[in-house]
């Protein structure tokens, strides 16, 4: 079959053609696919290009990253994207698109990113297969992953870029391949370069700001250095002074030119910086150390300056030492003030120590007290008492009766009720003695007036108190006395106010009770009499007050309707320096006056009687003597030679009797004369007197007698001549009368003058007197023996005369041996 063959050929051709057509259409299809793919890729590249142009124009890193994550999803046609930027010392920046952050935390993603970066090459875009993702914590949910990680050392940042897609979730899942890798690579390159440039820009900007800022800083610093009160020195690395500020010149007096360029060592020497300070500064500069030094120097005028010096080494960024800055803080005033304060404090301590003032201070903030030594001694406190701040110890030592009061007073200050309190209280010291303290508590306040503590002082006033008590009791005592004095006493003070009137006074003038403490000028009497009394009293008071002398005056009080005469005295008395009192006292002299008058009257009477008596005695004696003399005269007429011997014998007897009577009368006369006549003192020669008296007695009859004087006998005596004459007339008379009948009878007179008295002795070798009688010889009318011829008045008169002459007479005698009379007289008797 040709046809068949033909047909068969044809069919074969047809089939071949058909195959060709099929093949060509397949190719066409293939081409179309490629075309599509290329078109698609072109779109992706266009998107990438669009991203690039947008990204360059972003204004901030944040904006760039936001754009980047969005663009990544678009460009790569993936499900999610994320960018993590880690910076040194800063929070990481994380941006994402499409991550399920509501379910998985940002940190978990970041942790996975970091983990992946450990195993993939740096700075290369890679596609991670799903089997690798299976190993990750959160990323296992995705099928494919695009990953890029890089580190920029210069900028100090790490960049992680991640794209994610999962087969299940994406509708148009396409396994990531070469195409994606290429685009991702391009994308990351662009991102990186933009990011880097952004960060570089930022860094530059920051550096610019920093430079600007440090310039300002520098300006400020130099301004401060120039304007500061502190003196500032800049020392170069060659230890020469590079710069000083105005304050340095102002304080030291050395100007910029004096100092700059000089070596630090020499400059310090010139400024007389103290040796220790100099060494410390040089050492610090050499060692390039920052430190503080205290030093003193002298200004150009020689004044001492005190400095706190801060040495600051200046080092550049490279660590090279450039210079040292010396900041000199002038603390001269502070140092002086501190010294003054110390001196004041020392003085204050010394004063409190010397004055025995206990001082304490209590701080509320510390709840602690400090005591000075005086107070510690006062209380007898120990170290352990101080450890707890003394308060409990102090409280325990207060006298129980005073405790509540004292603590309350202290609390008043603590509660801000008062600023200070003064209190006296008792304590027990370490010996258990009660001591009285006078104490003062003062609140301490800060600047805002808040109470911050207490301080106070205590003085031991025990002795003072005791003295005070004594004074009080004495005062009581005297007040009692004055109160019960019979005299009326009033006391006025310097203002003429009646401050006191005793009971007698108030009894005499009861109205004064209401007038106490009133001025005398404002006291009004109750009647005319008291009115006048007060008026007179005012005059006396002011007189006493002005003259400051006692004023005496008479006053009449009416007491119980009787007139009483009073003697008033106003006595000004100063008490201390200031107080001036006038004590007015009245003494009732009514009785006294009466007695005095009586006495004067009686005395006059007595004197009269006495005179009369004397006169009487004299008259009697005299009148008795004249008839005796008459008898003697007649007897003389009758004496004739032719008288009968018997009559002659009678005559003689009569004569003897008349003589004895006459001598008795003379004795009485002498006695009366001694008592009547006043002393009359004169100087006279007693030896001559004694000789004359002895001569009168020589012819008394009997055996001869001799008058002797002791060898050292004085001649002159100052006394009453007449009385001394009577005295020796009697004594010598006795010696002559009672002489013994021996050949060498004598009477010896002696007188010696001593400091204040004259001693006269009269010794004889006569009959002597019996011991029993010696005592009585000076008695009136005593006669020793029957053969004595006197009146018994002789020695009595002698004794009376010696008494009148203010002397003494005594007598020693031995029977048959003799008698010695000793008389002592004052050198100069007083005239009464």
């Amino acid at each position, binding site marked *: 079959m040709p046809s068949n063959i033909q047909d068969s050929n044809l069919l074969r051709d047809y089939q071949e053609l058909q195959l060709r057509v099929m093949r060509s259409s397949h190719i066409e299809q293939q081409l179309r696919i490629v075309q599509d793919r290329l078109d698609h890729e072109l779109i992706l590249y266009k998107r990438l290009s669009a991203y690039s142009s947008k990204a360059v124009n972003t204004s901030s890193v944040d904006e760039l990253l936001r754009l980047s994550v969005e663009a990544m999803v678009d460009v790569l046609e993936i499900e999610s994207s994320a960018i993590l930027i880690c910076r040194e010392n800063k929070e990481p920046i994380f941006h994402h698109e499409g991550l399920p952050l509501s379910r998985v935390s940002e940190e978990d993603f970041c942790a996975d990113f970091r983990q992946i970066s450990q195993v993939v090459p740096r700075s290369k875009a890679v596609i991670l297969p799903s089997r690798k993702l299976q190993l990750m914590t959160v990323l296992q949910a995705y099928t494919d992953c695009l990953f890029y990680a890089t580190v920029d050392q210069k900028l100090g940042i790490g960049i992680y870029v991640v794209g994610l897609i999962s087969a299940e979730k994406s509708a148009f899942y396409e396994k990531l391949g070469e195409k994606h890798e290429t685009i991702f690579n391009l994308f990351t390159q662009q991102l990186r370069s933009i990011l880097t440039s952004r960060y570089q820009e930022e860094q530059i900007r920051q550096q610019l700001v920093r430079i600007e800022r440090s310039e300002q800083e520098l300006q400020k610093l130099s301004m401060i250095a120039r304007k500061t009160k502190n003196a500032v020195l800049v020392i170069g690395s060659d230890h020469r002074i590079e710069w000083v500020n105005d304050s340095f010149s102002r304080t030291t007096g050395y100007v910029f030119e004096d100092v700059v360029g000089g070596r630090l060592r020499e400059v310090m020497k010139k400024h007389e910086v103290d040796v220790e300070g100099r060494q410390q500064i040089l050492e610090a500069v050499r060692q390039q150390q920052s430190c503080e030094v205290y030093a003193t120097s002298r200004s150009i005028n020689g004044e001492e300056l005190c400095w706190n010096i801060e040495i600051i080494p200046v080092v550049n960024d490279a660590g090279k030492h450039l210079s040292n800055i010396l900041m000199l803080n002038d603390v001269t005033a502070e140092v002086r003030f501190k010294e003054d304060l110390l001196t004041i404090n020392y003085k204050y301590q010394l004063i409190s120590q010397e004055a025995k003032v206990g001082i304490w201070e209590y701080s509320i903030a510390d709840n602690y007290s400090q005591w000075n030594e005086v107070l510690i001694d006062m209380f007898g406190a120990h170290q352990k008492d101080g450890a707890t701040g003394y308060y409990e110890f102090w409280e325990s030592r207060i006298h129980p009766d005073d405790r509540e009061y004292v603590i309350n007073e202290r609390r008043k200050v603590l509660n801000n009720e008062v600023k200070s309190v003064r209190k006296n209280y008792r304590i027990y010291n370490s010996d258990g003695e009660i001591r009285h303290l006078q104490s003062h508590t003062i609140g301490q306040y800060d600047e805002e007036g808040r109470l911050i503590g207490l301080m106070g002082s205590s003085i031991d006033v025990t002795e003072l108190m005791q003295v005070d008590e004594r004074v009080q009791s004495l005062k009581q005592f005297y007040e009692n006395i004055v109160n019960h004095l019979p005299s009326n006493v009033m006391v006025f003070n310097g203002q003429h106010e009646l401050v006191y009137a005793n009971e007698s006074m108030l009894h005499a003038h009861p109205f004064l009770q209401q007038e106490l403490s009133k001025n005398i000028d404002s006291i009004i009497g109750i009647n005319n009499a008291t009115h006048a009394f007060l008026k007179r009293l005012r005059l006396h008071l002011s007189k006493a007050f002005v003259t400051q002398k006692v004023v005496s005056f008479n006053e009449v009080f009416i007491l119980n309707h009787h007139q009483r005469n009073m003697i008033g005295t106003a006595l000004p008395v100063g008490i201390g320096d200031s107080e001036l009192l006038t004590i007015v006292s009245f003494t009732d002299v009514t009785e006294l006056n009466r007695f005095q008058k009586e006495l004067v009257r009686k005395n006059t009477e007595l004197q009269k009687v006495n005179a009369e008596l004397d006169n009487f005695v004299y008259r009697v004696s*005299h009148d008795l003597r*004249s*008839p005796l*003399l*008459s008898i003697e*005269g*007649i007897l*003389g*007429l009758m004496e004739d030679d032719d008288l009968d011997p018997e009559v002659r014998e009678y005559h003689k007897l009569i004569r003897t009797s008349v003589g004895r009577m006459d001598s008795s009368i003379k004795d009485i006369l002498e006695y009366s004369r001694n008592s009547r006549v006043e002393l009359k003192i004169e100087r006279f020669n007693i030896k001559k007197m004694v000789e004359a008296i002895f001569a009168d007695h020589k012819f008394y009859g009997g055996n001869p007698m001799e008058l002797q004087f002791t060898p050292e006998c004085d001649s002159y005596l100052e006394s009453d001549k007449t009385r001394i004459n009577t005295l020796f007339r009697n004594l010598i008379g006795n010696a002559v009368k009672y002489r013994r009948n021996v050949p060498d009878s004598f009477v010896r007179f002696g007188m010696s003058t001593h400091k204040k008295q004259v001693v006269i002795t009269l010794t004889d070798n006569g009959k002597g007197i019996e011991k029993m009688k010696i005592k009585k010889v000076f008695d009136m009318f005593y006669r020793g023996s029957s053969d004595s011829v006197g009146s018994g008045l002789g020695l009595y008169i002698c004794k009376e005369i010696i008494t009148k002459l203010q002397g003494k007479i005594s007598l020693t005698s031995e029977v048959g041996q003799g008698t010695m009379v000793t008389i002592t007289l004052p050198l100069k008797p007083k005239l009464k």
Partner: protein
Amino acid sequence: MNYLLIDDDPIINLVHRKTILKFDEGAEVKEFLSPRTALDEILQNPKDVNGHVIFLDINMPDLNGF
């Protein structure tokens, strides 16, 4: 020689007269017991008493010798 004896005690005057006459026999002796009488007499003839010796007691009643 003329003598005036003035004493209130006549015995004394008598003793004096006797004693005077014993030593001066031609003596003219006048006696007075009262000093006033004596004074009156002397005052009446003051010239008469010239050269007279007078014994005068000084302690007498009425008027004494001084």
